[in-house]
């Protein structure tokens, strides 16, 4: 074994989630012979962790899409955040000022309160957000209509 490059790229949780979910579905769909058990275990556990609330990937339907990452990078460009800060924002999706403060170094010095609110708004717009009361109502409403549809037809 030889390590050619210890770090060729940094992956966000979303990208890892996509890849592992595909591995899992390939296993289930194609009835491919079982992969090595150690791989099956770590993949299952990692997916379980990524889908555990309050991870943003725990939401169904997912609010992350293939173009979320470039869109977010583009929109946060004026704030001049570092790569590490952006990765953390992608993974954690901070929804409050204290949460944002953990991902951005010296936030109070670098940004005014207005700017902090702007960043939070952009994150919520691009990556979505948890909104339990409203969402459950929406979900219920959707369920109601689909029930009504089912009964009507």
């Amino acid at each position, binding site marked *: *074994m*030889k*390590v*050619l*490059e*210890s*770090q*060729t*790229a*940094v*992956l*966000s*949780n979303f*990208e*890892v989630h996509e*890849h*592992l979910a595909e*591995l899992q579905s390939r296993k289930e769909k194609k009835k*491919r*012979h079982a*992969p*090595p058990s*150690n*791989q099956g*275990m*770590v*993949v299952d*556990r*990692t997916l*379980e*962790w990524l889908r*555990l*609330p*309050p*991870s943003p990937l725990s939401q169904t339907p997912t609010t992350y899409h293939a173009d979320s990452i470039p869109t977010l990078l583009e929109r946060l460009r004026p704030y001049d955040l570092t790569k*590490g800060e952006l*990765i*953390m924002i992608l*993974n*954690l999706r901070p*929804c*409050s000022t*204290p*949460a*944002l*403060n*953990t*991902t951005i*170094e010296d936030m109070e010095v670098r940004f005014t309160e207005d700017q902090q609110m702007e960043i939070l708004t952009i994150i919520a717009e691009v990556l979505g957000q948890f909104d339990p009361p409203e969402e459950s109502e929406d979900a219920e409403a959707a369920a109601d209509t689909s029930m009504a549809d089912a009964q009507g037809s």
Partner: protein
Amino acid sequence: MFILTKIADLVQIKAADFSKPSIEAIEDNINAKYANKVLQKIGLCVALYDILWTSEGLIGHGTGEVNVNVEFRMIVFRPFKGEVMLGKIKSSTPSGINLFTIFFNDIFIPFEELPAGSEYSHSDQLWIWKMDDVRLYYDTNETVRFQVIEEDWHDQTPAGPSQTSLGGPDEEENAVAPYKIKGSMAREGLGVCLWWDN
């Protein structure tokens, strides 16, 4: 949290695996060797990401195994220093709090890295953050945000028998995890998620 690492290795496909398509045989071989294993100073390997290059298969002399040189990329769990991530509280001791993330269990927050005013409650076996008259509990299984401050590598390669001592200390050393993360929850916004997100 995750990175890609480029590795070159020799894959030996056993005759029993000849019924598999070559690509699957190579993937399985790599995953069997690396998945869920810690590479020193690299991190915890999760799964194969992609195969970049393979040589022709060469049949070894005497065994009938097919030898293929492969270059590939692995998904590796390796949070960078200063990264903020989520964890769950596994247990609390007077020396600090142990965290886990289902697939990785060796995260430790020493008591010095808890916010000022934290106290250990021996009766509850929990850490409590006291601010004036508010008491906030670090309950077991609670999801917390923490910041990675240090990593601790421990090479488990056997060092060979020692001449002086027998058994005792060696066994203790073997129990040390190969890759440990030390974290902090002292900054504002870190600690139990529920305290900050409402």
